């Protein structure tokens, strides 16, 4: 409870860190902020070529099918991989000044989140230009889905950033973990083709449900399944609680370990 109150008092710090991160991210590169869009677009091209032309996924408008899942996934995976090193990266600040340590992963995840929101502009542009159109009622649930994903990503980032301080290998391990996680989530393919004996693992994966919700709303233009959304929210909150507990326990010795 105290933590929440304190974090609220430090909201301006979160805000300025997010701003600094967004402004500083592409500093010095020629295309600058455009990279926010170019990067996912290029990934989209690669996956579309591989899965739609070579592997023949046989899904209508595969590029959109993939795009609405890929952008949320990139947000999630960068939150845990790069988020993991966020606390280590700010060690100068942590060693020298007091502030609630959670500010760092929170602001990092938030800046990734803002990036995702910007990418959604491109998604909507594609939806409109290609004439797919939107279901406005379903669209109203989009902020909820995003919120659920944000909670999940934050939970994971709290966990990984705190553990990385004590165990630096995690940064590298997470690169592979996040790749495996991506293939274990129905992003490039449909959940219906997953073999039955693997289904329980897919259902336990919180991102499966989130991605399905995004896809239902944006690709199928339908209301998301309430039970899927609730289940995802439940998993998200559980992750966040675990993340907070671990972070709080580990943060006491940050200054000495860094």
């Amino acid at each position, binding site marked *: 409870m105290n933590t929440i109150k304190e974090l609220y*008092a*430090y*909201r*301006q*710090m979160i*805000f*300025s*860190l997010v701003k*600094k991160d967004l*402004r*500083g991210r592409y*500093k010095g590169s020629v295309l600058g902020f455009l990279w926010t869009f170019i990067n996912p677009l290029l990934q989209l091209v690669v996956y579309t070529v591989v899965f739609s032309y070579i592997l023949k996924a046989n899904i209508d408008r595969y590029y959109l099918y993939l795009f609405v899942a890929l952008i949320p996934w990139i947000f999630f995976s960068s939150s845990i991989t790069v988020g993991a090193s966020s606390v280590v990266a700010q060690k*100068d*600040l*942590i*060693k*020298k*000044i*007091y*502030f609630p340590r959670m500010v760092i992963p929170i602001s990092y995840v938030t800046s990734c989140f803002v990036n995702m929101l910007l990418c959604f502009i491109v998604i909507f542009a594609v939806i409109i230009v290609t004439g797919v159109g939107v279901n406005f009622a379903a669209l109203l649930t989009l902020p909820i889905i995003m919120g659920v994903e944000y909670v999940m990503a934050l939970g994971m980032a709290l966990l990984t950033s705190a553990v990385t301080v*004590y*165990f*630096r*290998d995690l940064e590298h*391990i997470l690169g592979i973990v996040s790749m495996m996680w991506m293939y274990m989530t129905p992003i490039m393919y449909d959940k219906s083709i997953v073999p039955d004996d693997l289904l329980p693992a897919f259902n336990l994966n919180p991102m499966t449900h989130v991605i399905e919700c995004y896809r239902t709303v944006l690709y199928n233009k339908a209301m998301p399944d309430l039970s899927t959304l609730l289940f995802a929210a439940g998993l998200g909150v559980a992750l966040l609680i675990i993340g907070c507990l671990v972070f709080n326990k580990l943060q*006491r*010795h940050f*200054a*000495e370990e860094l």
Partner: protein
Amino acid sequence: MAQNEIAIDVNNITKSFKVFLDKGSQLKERLLFRKRSRYEERKVLRGISFQVKKGEAIGLIGHNGCGKSTTLKLLTKIMYPDTGTITMNGRVSSLIELGAGFHPDMSGRENIYTNASIFGLTKKEIDARLNDIVAFSELEEFIDNPVRTYSSGMYMRLAFSVAINVDADILLIDEILAVGDANFQAKCFNKLKEIKSHGTTIVIVSHSLGQIEQICDRSIWIHEGLIRAEGPPKEIDLEYLDFMGQKLQESTRKELEEKQQEEASEPAEEEEQEETPEEKKRWGSGAARIKKIRAYTSDGAEQRIFRTGESIRFKLDYTVKEKVPDAVFGIGIFNRDGVQCYGTNTRIDKLPEFSLEKSGTAEIFLEKADLLPGEYLLDFAIETGDGIPVDYYREAYKIEMISNIGDVGISRLEHKWNI
């Protein structure tokens, strides 16, 4: 004492650090060499308790590594004590790390927002303070330029202005009053006094006893992780100075003994060793060399810290390789900004030239050293009569001046007011 009158309550805290002999933080190392990651536990604080009343200012003193900075870090909650408790009542601001989170490409104004937000201020609170901060930093013209274009002095001025305008209930300060030029320092100092008069509780860690004496109501002397003495700064600081003086004497004696032993065993090499690290700070024909410099207070104690207005006696031991028929001794005193505060030599002072034939000791006695508080670097030199250096030794010695009078500048001028 009523509970609501206490700003800081430190109750029997201990803290130790693990000093790893070889630390493996990788998985492989952790798994394979689990038993090998040996470490030594170094106890930095061994049970410290004190209370600070609201509006009181205390100074923590002690030599390097005694635990005073660790105590301050525990107070700010950067670290947590192993045992014991700390209770802080009120908003805490620390002047420990100035300019935290400054971004060189952002303007001074934007950096004020970033930096102040790290102290936990909201946008509204920063808006309200912005004018004060800018005015205090004296950077009105430059406030919209990127911080990378600032000089280091301007940078620190901006950083200090933010930190001091946070309006905390408790202010923790670690060695920061060395910011900027003398004028700005004086300004910071006055601001601190003003803050204190508004009832802010202040804890200062400083090597500069003069500053502590000016602001603090109480000094706490921490020695080897325990409180050795506490009380009015004037008394405690004197006790501390005495102690440090004795320690210095001990260590110099030890050094001397070691040197003598070394000299006895390998006399030829010793001289070369001395030459290498000091090449740039030392030049001259080498016919004679300054061997050792010592400074004494009026009562004969060897010391490096002096009070403004006290006398200082420097003794220079020198050795002679070749006879110098017309020697001149000189001294130069520089402050930390490299400004020469005073310099003279035996020629300027119209002493007769003298011939250096064998090793001996020269002496210069400053009857009333009116240098104001701060660190000073001293040059000593031996020259020939026509000014050719025999042994010019730059930054040969360092002294610190302390004072509990708040006058500013370089040197105190004798003065009298008639009002």
